[in-house]
């Protein structure tokens, strides 16, 4: 579980007043979280970078409308998720994921895209060891439904609490839990199928 450092209320107020330094501070504190959510949701570094910048531009333009500074993190995450949903739809329309098929290896941090070599005779455990786990997981995540991926990214990769997720997704905690479990089980199935 990872959590980004909390942004102080005072910094947000200064940012609302048009202080560029305060905005820079906000970007530096939350860029990693925004960028990683974007990357895990889209599976592409360039797209994630562009999307994260768009998110901060939206923050820059509309932070003055934020009424409750204490909810800045949730607000920022909400903006990020909305941008991710829109970008995902856009990329799907453009058949971005068809040309770069979901079965293809996922672009890694260093830009290389190695294809996972699957040997059916191998034990799954050995297979998992062979593969870069992160690539494997990323591939699995991208094969999930968008809302399932959101749940896994928020809970298992970003460490959001059920309550926070309930607020973000406007769902009761019980629903979040059951949906999250279903997402995990689906991911397990996907990974097993990929390994075979």
């Amino acid at each position: 579980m990872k959590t980004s450092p909390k942004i102080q209320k005072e910094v947000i107020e200064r940012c609302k007043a048009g202080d560029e330094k305060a905005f820079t501070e906000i970007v530096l504190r939350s860029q990693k979280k925004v960028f990683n959510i974007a990357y895990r949701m889209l599976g592409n570094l360039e797209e994630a970078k562009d999307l994260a910048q768009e998110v901060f531009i939206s923050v820059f333009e509309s932070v003055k409308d934020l009424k409750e500074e204490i909810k800045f993190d949730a607000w920022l995450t909400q903006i990020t998720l909305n941008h991710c949903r829109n970008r995902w739809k856009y990329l799907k329309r453009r058949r971005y994921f068809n040309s770069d098929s979901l079965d293809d290896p996922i672009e890694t941090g260093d830009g290389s895209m190695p294809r996972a070599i699957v040997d059916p005779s191998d034990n799954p455990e050995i297979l998992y060891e062979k593969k870069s786990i992160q690539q494997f997981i990323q591939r699995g995540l991208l094969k999930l439904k968008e809302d399932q991926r959101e749940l896994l990214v928020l809970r298992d990769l970003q460490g959001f609490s059920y309550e926070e997720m309930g607020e973000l997704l406007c769902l009761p905690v019980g629903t979040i839990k059951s949906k999250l479990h279903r997402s995990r089980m689906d991911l397990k199935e996907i990974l097993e199928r990929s390994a075979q």
Partner: protein
Amino acid sequence: MDCEKIRDRFSSLWEKELVPSEEKIIREHLSSCPRCQKELERFGKTMEWLCTVEDVEVPEGFLPELYKKIEERKMAFLAGKSRGRWFLFPLSFKLPAQAIAMAGIVFLVLYLTQMMPTEVSRQKGAEQTSSPLSEERKPEQLFAKKKTEDERGTLDITAETTRRKDIEHVQAPASGKKEIEDIRIAQTKEEAKKEELPVPKSEMMASQQIKSKEAARAGIQTPGPGEFEKELAAKEKPVLASKPSQEITLRIADREQAIFQLQELVKHFRGEMVTEEENRFIVSLPTISFSEFEKELGGLSASTQTDKVMAKKPSTFSVRASPGVKREEGGGRSKEPVKLTADQEGCTVVLILLTKE
């Protein structure tokens, strides 16, 4: 508890959210069910992998690029704002401005539509005359000029020698536009004289004929809107004069006496002898006195007979029948009151031919 329900608790078991009693039941089932145990292992492995996924580092230059994008957006916004500024103005400003603009457009349209009909008709006339004389036909224009000069020469010969001096300034050879301008000046002078003093007819007619042609050419060469109007007016007069509306043939025994009587009659009716050739006379008379003149002409002498031929525009001319006058009338309008085309001018042009019995 069946396997499906046990598997639904895997997330809760992994996150240690189950109450001890519930956890105990699940553990018992797992120990007795290798399938569910295997499933739990795989599930646990997936969860471990998920949790081991590390954050990716933000690419270098993220912040400077972000600021660059923000600047670009600002510029684009300002450009868009300046473009769509009109939409931001309040209605209290926009409505009067639009009303003023609309009124301006309406006035402009009205002004143009008032101007257009006459302008268009004149331009059409100009096109009709000017179109054959395009730049390609400049040599033809020169030829036509020469021809006009020749015509003037012939007119000079036919005109009375005593009046030659008076029209010399009209005939004086000139070249190009200067010639045309001189003719125009002469024309205006003569018109002024015509109003004040009785001008020698032959001179006037000859000059008018020349003017009409010259004016037509001048109009062709310089079809300016103001000048064109004047030239058209100047053109119409001599055309009327050069085409006598009435033609009367007098059969006479004594030529000298008949000419004398004719001159007297013309003077009496305040008319003018336009041209006097051997047996051919063109007389300009006030329209009102034309019928009386015709009567008198018919009764010049017992031996005198008149042949009257209607002119080319019979519908506009009607002359009362008189004894001894042979008439050819056009249409059924012979009994209409005297109304001539020259009414506009106030005079009627009559061609009188003398023939010996």
